[in-house]
C-alpha cells in the first residue's frame, strides 16, 4: 500500500494539521517508508487471536456517584486563553 499526495492531504485534513503543498513530497516519502516497514505484520497468522486492548490487570471499578472534587474555579480558569470574569470563553465552535 502506498499513499498518494491526495491521501496524505486527506489524512492531514482528518487530523486537522495544516500542511503546505511543499511539505507533501517529504511527508509522503516518510509515511510510505513507515507503512512499507509495518507491512511485515501481514505475514503473521492472526486467525482466532483476540485483540489486546489493555494488559487486563486492572478491573473496572464502581464507585459511589458522589462529588469528589470541585470548588476550584480559579484553578480551572488559570489556563483559560480568554476568561471573562468567572466564565471560560472560547472561540465559536458550533457553526
Amino acid at each position, binding site marked *: 500500500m502506498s*499513499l498518494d499526495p491526495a*491521501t*496524505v492531504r486527506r*489524512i*492531514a485534513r*482528518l*487530523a*486537522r*494539521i*495544516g*500542511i503546505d503543498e511543499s511539505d507533501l513530497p517529504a*511527508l509522503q516519502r*516518510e*509515511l510510505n*517508508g*513507515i*507503512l512499507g*516497514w*509495518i507491512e*511485515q*505484520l*501481514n505475514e*503473521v497468522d*492472526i486467525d482466532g*487471536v*483476540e*485483540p*489486546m*486492548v*489493555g*494488559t487486563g*490487570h*486492572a478491573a*473496572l*471499578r464502581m*464507585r459511589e456517584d458522589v462529588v469528589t472534587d470541585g470548588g*476550584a474555579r480559579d*484553578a*480551572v480558569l*488559570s*489556563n*483559560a*486563553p480568554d476568561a471573562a470574569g468567572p466564565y*471560560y470563553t*472560547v*472561540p*465559536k*465552535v458550533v*457553526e
Partner: protein
Amino acid sequence: MMLTELTIAAAQGGLRRREFSAEELVGAHVAAIDRLNGRLNAFITVTSEQALDAARRADAILAGGEDAPALTGIPLGIKDLFCTDGVRTTAASRMLEEFVPPYESTVTANLLADGAVFVGKTNLDEFAMGSANITSAFGSVENPWKRAGDDQTVLVPGGSSGGSAAAVAARLAMGATGTDTGGSIRQPASYCGIAGIKPTYGRCSRWGTIAFASSLDQAGPMARTVEDCAILLQSMAGFDVRDSTSVDVAVPDYRAACGRSLKGMKVGIPAEYRVAGMPAEIEAAWEQGIAWLRDAGCEIVEVSLPYTKYGLATYYIVAPAECSSNLARYDGVRFGRRVPGESLDELYEATRREGFGAEVRRRILMGTYVLSAGYYDAYYLRAQKVRNLIRKDFENAFRTVDVLLTPTAPSPAFAQGEKMDDPVQMYLNDVFTVPASMAGVPAMSVPAGLSQSGLPLGLQVIGRSFDEESVFAAASALERAASFTHRPAVRAEVV
C-alpha cells in the same frame, strides 16, 4: 565530601546523621545545574529558589528527629511530562509552552509527600516521542559522556527521558522521574550509564502525566544505582483511584529485594534478541552478563519469544494510533497555544501545525491513517492481535524462567545528526525495549560496561508482571559484578 557524588541511599544516612544539611546537598546540585545546564540543556525549567526553600524546610524536619520521610531533602529532576502544581509543564512542546498546571500528578505528589525536593523539570523529546532527545521544542540535550579521545562530538542522551538521564549522569540531580512508552527510560539510561526501571503497567499512576500512548505509558525512576531506583519506585508506586488502569496490589519492599540471593533463579536468554548485525561489543556485554548471573547462582535457560521481531512494527501502529487520539485535545480552543484562523478549521489546522514539531505531526498522521475508515482492521486491529501474541510469548517464557536478560539497546549513544534522515532507522533503537512495553511487564536497564569507544552499555532485565523484586534482585547482582565506576566527562565535580 563531594555531595554530588553520593547515592540517594548514602545521602539518606548522611542527612540523618547531620553530616551535611539538606540545604548544602540541594545547594550543591543547584550550583552544578547553574554551571552545566547551559551546555547540557538537561532542564527546561530550573526551580532553584523553590528547591532551596524546600531544602530549608527539610532541614527543619530532619532536626526534629527520627520521623523524617524517606526522601526528605533529596534533590530530584522531574521529567517535564509530569504536571507540577504552579510550575510550568511543557511536554517539550510549543503547544504547552506557557502551560502551568493547577494540580500535581500522583507520582510527583507521592515523591513530595515523602520529602523529595524538585530542582527542575527535565528536557525530553516532544510529548515523549523520540529516541535521541532531538525533537524537543526547547533544544536537544547533550549526553555528558564523550567518546574516548574525542571531546568534540556531541552525543545524544537517548530518549525520550534524555534530560532526566543526562541530569542524573552529570550529577545535576541524585535521581529523576522518567516515563517509558517503548523504551524511554531504559534506552537513555543505557546511553548515559545509569540505571532505570519501567515498572509493570499499572504500578505507577498515570494521573497528571501528559499522555502519549495510554495503554503503554508508564512512569519509573532513573538513578545511578539499582538500589536508588528501588528507593524512588517505592515512593512513586501505588494504587490510585484516579487512574482506571492503576492496579490495586500491595507495593513490596523493593530495597530489600536488591540484596536478595539469586540461588536457583532461572534466567531466560531469548534467542530472537540475537538480531542480525548486532555489534560484537553488544553481544560481548550480553555474554558477560550471562556469565555474571551464572556465577551468582542462576540457572541459564535458552528460551524463544518467536513474535519478538514484530514488536517494533506493532508498536509503530499502536502508539501513533493512541497518540493521534490523545493529542486531539490540543486544538487551540481551551488551553495551550492558539493560532487564530478565519474559520474554526483554520484555527485548528494553524494551531496544530505551529504547535507540534515534525515528529509529533508525523505520528499523529500515521495514527490518524491506521484508525481511519477502511484501514482500521488492516492496521490497528491486526496490530492489537499481534500485540496479544507478543504478550503470550512472555507468558510462555515466564512459565519456565523468572527473568529474561537481553541488551538494552543495539548500540551505544550515537552522535547528534546520525540516524536522523529516516524515521525507521531512528525507531530501530527501541528494538529490544519495545516488546516488554507491548506486554506491560517490568524491565530495567543497568550499566554493564563500556564500549570500545568508551561509552556505557546497558543490559536489560525483564520480569513477570508485578514482580519488580526479581528484576531488582537480578539487576543488583549484575551491578555488583560489573562494578561500573566509570563517570562521564561532563559532570558536576569536573571544573
